[in-house]
């Protein structure tokens, strides 16, 4: 009986709480959560230089205006720019509004509102540059742009251009100023706010490509899409939107034409537009899409990953051996320096080391191209680990080996070269293989210094088609399969070089199908 009433009480409580929650959400004005990237985001969304706690920008003003029309309070949600659409689909915010260009492939994943701004792409070069006056002049040159932007696709479509993509826009213009790039291509508003303030840079050539910005809305939120479109039309008619652009110095002829067109169009055109962007991909289309990714991943990404890994590891193995020998046998100050190097490079993040090498070193006059920086960065980092492997291997060799070599009249260096190190190498094959596999996968971080390798190609594909799972599994499988032969090779080398020859016989038979001399037990 008592139990029963307790249960009843709990039920009542839940009911009351539930009702309270419902009524609260019905009464309060709803939020309009909008996603954008405020990092280096002028003039769209960015931290106010005068008061970094506030974010400002023409899209902030637009969000305010839309919120007013929709009777919803705008709330800004920070999200990495190249992840804006996945973030929208995951429900992190209601709309994505951050200079998102309306493109066909994006329309397959999300809906776009009517365009709210029209602009073009602008080439920036150094002031002394005379040879670049059009897109075609960029062929064979190093050109920077924002990762996954329309500008990147325009450059890829043009072909023959060495494209370097950046997570943020600031680094690309600085790399242009210090000579690492020949040109930068970005949306005109970005160019005005980031290229023009740098005296070493100038604009080159005519405007390229018409770029339309639209607000991204999830496919299932059709009602929200309609209300946003209506609100945008109202803002265009009332001139509010124009005033926002004029305030930020962005009003242009193309946008004026667009607004005139849109506001004059009958409602039918709007409906057609809405219908055309809500098409979904069939299962069969998806499968074909995946198959088409494989050669892209294999030929555009994998060879670079392999090259960086193999050369990086070669550097690590060679330099690591020197570090280990210096650490073990050199006079004290040198040995200490080697130990300090090992601890420093093991103890700090690889990512930061790469940033320092790529973006930091140019300020002291050392300017490495991305491939060299990637190899040097990975090599220097892994050398610290390899040094420790060698040290363990060398110390595992019995003391009698060194004594025997010395008593035969060898110098210490000769003994190391002919007796100690060859034996240590055999011991360290398994841990070095381990590190190679780790480096192989760590090579994915070099995409941050504008290298296009496997993971970067994955990012490009995934963000183009907004499919992080399928392409992700595909890419992981390629990494895995590419690593396997190295594991196998190491096994074989290990067996081949084993000092116990019985293992060798087995290994030889396995690899060559040839029997070796019988061995006495």
């Amino acid at each position, binding site marked *: 009986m008592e139990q029963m009433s307790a249960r009843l009480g709990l039920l009542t409580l839940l009911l009351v709480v539930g009702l309270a929650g419902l009524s609260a959400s019905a009464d309060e004005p709803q939020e309009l959560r909008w996603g954008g990237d405020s990092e280096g985001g002028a003039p769209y969304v960015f931290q106010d230089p005068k008061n970094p706690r506030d974010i400002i920008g023409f899209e902030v003003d637009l969000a305010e205006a839309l919120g007013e029309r929709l009777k919803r309070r705008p709330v800004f949600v920070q999200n990495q720019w190249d992840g804006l659409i996945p973030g929208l689909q995951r429900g992190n915010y209601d709309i994505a509004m951050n200079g998102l260009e309306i493109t066909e492939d994006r329309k397959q994943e999300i809906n776009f509102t009517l365009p709210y701004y029209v602009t073009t792409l602008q080439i920036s070069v150094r002031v002394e540059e005379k040879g670049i006056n059009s897109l075609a002049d960029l062929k064979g040159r190093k050109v920077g742009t924002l990762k996954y932007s329309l500008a990147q696709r325009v450059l890829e479509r043009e072909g023959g251009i060495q494209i370097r993509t950046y997570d943020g826009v600031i680094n690309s213009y600085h790399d242009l100023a210090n000579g690492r790039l020949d040109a930068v291509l970005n949306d005109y508003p970005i160019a005005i706010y980031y290229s023009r303030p740098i005296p070493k840079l100038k604009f080159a050539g005519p405007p390229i490509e018409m770029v339309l910005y639209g607000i991204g809305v999830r496919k299932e939120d059709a009602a929200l899409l309609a209300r946003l479109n209506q609100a945008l039309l109202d803002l265009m008619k009332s001139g509010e939107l124009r005033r926002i652009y004029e305030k930020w110095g962005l009003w242009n002829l193309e946008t004026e034409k667009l607004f005139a067109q849109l506001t004059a169009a009958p409602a039918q055109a709007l409906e057609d537009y809405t219908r055309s962007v809500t098409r979904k991909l069939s299962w069969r289309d998806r499968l074909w899409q995946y198959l088409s990714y494989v050669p892209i991943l294999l030929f555009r990404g994998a060879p670079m990953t392999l090259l960086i890994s193999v050369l990086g590891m070669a550097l690590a193995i060679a330099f690591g051996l020197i570090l280990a020998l210096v650490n073990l046998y050199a006079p004290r100050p040198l040995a200490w320096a080697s130990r300090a190097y090992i601890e420093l490079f093991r103890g700090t993040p690889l990512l930061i080391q790469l940033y320092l090498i790529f973006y930091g070193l140019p300020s002291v006059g050392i300017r490495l191209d991305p491939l060299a920086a990637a190899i040097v960065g990975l090599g220097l980092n892994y050398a610290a680990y390899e040094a420790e492997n060698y040290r363990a291997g060398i110390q595992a060799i*019995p003391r*009698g*080996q060194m*004594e*025997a*070599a*010395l*008593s*035969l*009249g*060898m*110098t*210490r260096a*000769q003994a190391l070269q*002919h*007796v100690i190190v*060859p*034996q240590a190498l*055999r011991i360290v094959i398994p841990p070095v293989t381990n590190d190679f596999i780790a480096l192989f996968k760590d090579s994915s971080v070099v995409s941050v210094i504008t290298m296009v390798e496997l993971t970067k190609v994955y990012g490009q594909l995934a963000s183009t088609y907004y499919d992080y799972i399928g392409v992700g599994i595909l890419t992981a499988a390629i990494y895995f399969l590419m690593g396997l032969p190295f594991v196998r090779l190491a096994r074989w080398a290990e067996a081949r*070089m084993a*000092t*116990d*020859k019985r293992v060798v016989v087995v290994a030889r038979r396995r690899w060559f199908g040839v029997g070796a001399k019988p*061995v*006495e037990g």
Partner: protein
Amino acid sequence: MSALISVENLRKKFGHIVALRGISFEVAASELTVIIGPSGCGKSTLLRCLNGLELFDSGRVRIGDFTFERNNGISHRELQVQLRHLREEVGMVFQSFNLFPHLTVLENAVLAPMVVKKLDRQTAERRARELLAKVGLSDRLDYYPSQLSGGQQQRAAIARALAMSPKVMLYDEPTSSLDPSLVGEVLNIMRKLDDEGMTQVVVTHEMRFARDVADKILFLDDGELVESASPEEIFSAPRDERTREFLRSFL
């Protein structure tokens, strides 16, 4: 007749422990000298001082024309040069063989002549094959140490040391880690070398070998050279009480 080896007043300490307390002796060319004594008496240390694997604190070692003495004035580099000079005169055989496990028997005997003496491979191999034939390993040239018995390994180690053409061979308990059945084959090699006139100094517990083959026996106890005499004298009429006691434990 002047001695091939002369050791004068050798002293050595490990921290507070005194290992050698002023040892002097001489070895004539072609002689086989056996050093005996209880474990920890300093006999291995003495042997290792003769080829510089252990550095003595004071005293002097002369082998042939080369004299090695401690002199604090010389640089590290100069010391290494002197040590290499000393080691060129002296071959060493270890209790645990210390063959290079990653090389075949032939390569073990070829490496040092090529690296240190800069012989070409052909010359070095010819000499190595001769020596390996002498120790009875002609049919094991391409075997790795791990494929050989202990006795075969120690014989290979002797050939490897001989390949450097030393004036003197030192043996540090060469048969102590061997099966009793394999001891004989190693001792036989040393007998053969003795017959050929090689100067040898052997630390061992093989008393019968010492009695039969040695020209002179040194008895060490607690870092002191207690007695130095012919095998007949040592085994039949030891002068010192400590020698008598040590030998009793072997009979």
